């Protein structure tokens, strides 16, 4: 009976997966069709494509950061779903997609004469003639993001002590991207709301991650309870009845070297 049920379940999961993949492929095709249809022939098409890629990249970066915070949250061991393996896979996959859309954002802007950014402006701070400050923030964010991503790609091959501090520049990347978006990309209230809500969400999770007591703090708490040396004279007194807890003094931490007679 239970074997039949499990077979039925497997079949159901398989069918669901086929429907999901087919559905998402259809939806993607439809979205691309609508996008092409609405900008076809428009001389602003590359600009719109670059903006869309930028916003997508930002949203992916937010999701990536949220997964990163969850991965290092002190409560991570208590959460069962998604599993630890799924979380790390999602974090890595999101970083790849973020990179893909960032590259699209950059390539389109660099090759679009109308944008006035150019290849120079894409990679060098203050190299853009179009809105130099916001573009520069984006450029620095790109470098910081690449540093965070490349060091993490080496995780497991190099010491955690080497890559983990560098990986934390990811937060610089996100903050700069957010400012880049706020300064250069809020021409509609919807976009402003998106930046405010997503920024608030990351701050909320980050506060929870950094204010929750970590394992290291718990060890420090345990280590703070020190062993004490009992003054023998106090305990060895004549009173055979219950005595109050005697005052104890900390254990002498100085190892005496008896061999040298000290």
């Amino acid at each position, binding site marked *: 009976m239970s074997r039949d049920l499990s077979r039925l379940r497997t079949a159901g999961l398989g069918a669901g997966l086929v429907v999901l993949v087919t559905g998402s492929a259809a939806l993607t095709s439809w979205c691309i069709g609508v996008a092409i249809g609405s900008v076809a022939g428009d001389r602003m098409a590359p600009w719109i494509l670059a903006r869309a890629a930028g916003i997508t990249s930002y949203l992916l970066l937010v999701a990536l950061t949220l997964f990163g915070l969850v991965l290092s949250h002190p409560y991570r061991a208590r959460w069962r779903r998604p599993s630890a393996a799924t979380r790390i896979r999602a974090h890595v996959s999101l970083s790849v997609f973020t990179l893909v859309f960032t590259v699209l954002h950059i390539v389109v802007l660099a090759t679009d004469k109308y944008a006035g950014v150019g290849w120079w402006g894409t990679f060098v701070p203050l190299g853009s003639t179009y809105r130099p400050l916001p573009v520069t923030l984006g450029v620095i964010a790109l470098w910081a993001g690449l540093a965070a991503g490349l060091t993490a790609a080496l995780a497991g091959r190099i010491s955690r002590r080497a890559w983990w501090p560098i990986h934390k520049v990811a937060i610089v990347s996100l903050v700069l991207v957010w400012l880049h978006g706020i300064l250069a990309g809020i021409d509609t209230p919807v976009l402003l709301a998106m930046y405010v809500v997503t920024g608030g969400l990351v701050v909320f999770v980050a506060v929870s991650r950094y204010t929750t007591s970590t394992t290291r703090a718990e060890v420090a708490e345990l*280590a703070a*309870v020190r062993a004490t*040396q009992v003054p023998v004279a106090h305990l060895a007194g004549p009173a055979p009845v219950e*005595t109050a*807890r005697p005052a104890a003094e900390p254990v002498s931490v100085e190892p005496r070297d008896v061999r040298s007679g000290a």
Partner: protein
Amino acid sequence: MSVHLRLVETPAVATATGLLDGAAVLSRRGTESLSGVAPQDLDAHRAVFGVRRSAAGDAAEALLAAIDEVHLTGRGGGHFPTAVKWRSVLAHGLGATVVVNGAEGEPGSAKDAVLLQTRPHLVLDGLVAAMEAMGSTDGVVWLHDGAWASARSISRALAERATAGLADPPIRVVLAPDRYLSGEATGIIRTLEGGPTLPRFVEDPARPWSEGARSVLVNNAETMARVGLLVTGSAATYRPTSLLTVVSAGHRVVLEVGPATTLGEVVDRAWSSPDGRPPQALLLGGYGGSWVSWDVARELHVDADELRRHGLSVGAGLVGPLPATACGLEESARLVRYLAGQSARQCGPCVFGLVAVADLASDLSAGRLTPSGRRRLGRFMGEISGRGACRHPDGALRMLASALTVFGDDVHRHRRGRTCDAPTFAVLPVPGES
């Protein structure tokens, strides 16, 4: 917390071959205020056991030979030969710090407390002999915070020895934080070196102290009392007994038994069944020990070799009979949860692994373990074992694994979402539970 102890079955004439005169009864928790029992004073101690012989210089080798001859081992469950440990410390030169470990982390166990409170001079004779053999001038009686009765008993005995003019080397009494892992040897050594009382990784088990630090010999209180027997008596009169703590619903009994005694006799003698029926199983060794079904356990002798053949050990001496009306899985899940909470939180296998295993064990106990949870439990138990600085998870996993075997029928029932609905629960004491 008021705990009362009385001696029962006290024989008319005390014998010099055993550690205890009879069985001691304690309340369910704690080791303190064992009123009604006077510690054996120095005169009484000498009348029963005789005067300690020196173990300094050449006499050290004779003592080591005697320790070898009686196959004296540690009480940690690994049965590590005491003589090998002593020789490995001696290999690093004279002048080691010698520690009597009387910090019983096992919440159910009270054998060391009873020993320290009724036979302080025997333990101290063992300690002083060990110090002489090691050329030591630093002796430590290591107890846990709250063990005031033991601390008082030892301190009084030390004062008595000083008054009697015994030329004992300096001995101090140190109270460790009251935690499960406070009796762990690497944590003791770390503390003596000025660090926190937490276990640490040791690269060379034969040299658990830090490079350049003073060498340290740590022996359990029972082992040290047995050394005391050897330096007052001889290997010929030595009896290889075991001290056990048997846990009942309202009290505990500490007793000494010989290798010819079966666990069935131990339970008959010291356990009160809540319903008149024999127990369904025993937890043997400690909370990191193993469950043994009653049918197997009743015939087993309290003999290290015989127990080892069954993959068992007396360990810390705990005997926890599980009443027929209790659920072994519920009890085990409770103990795993306690052990997970008592980790030093230093190593991944405890922080993540043991906590996850405790969650899954609770799920199983509550009858809501999913098939994927079952697979994860099996996987985690394999992945975690043998890891961590002090191997703390190993004991918890051994206990849980034995529960899954011994309570196999219950596992089957719980997996189908039906619990035992046992009327008896919380059989073994866990600190902090009301």
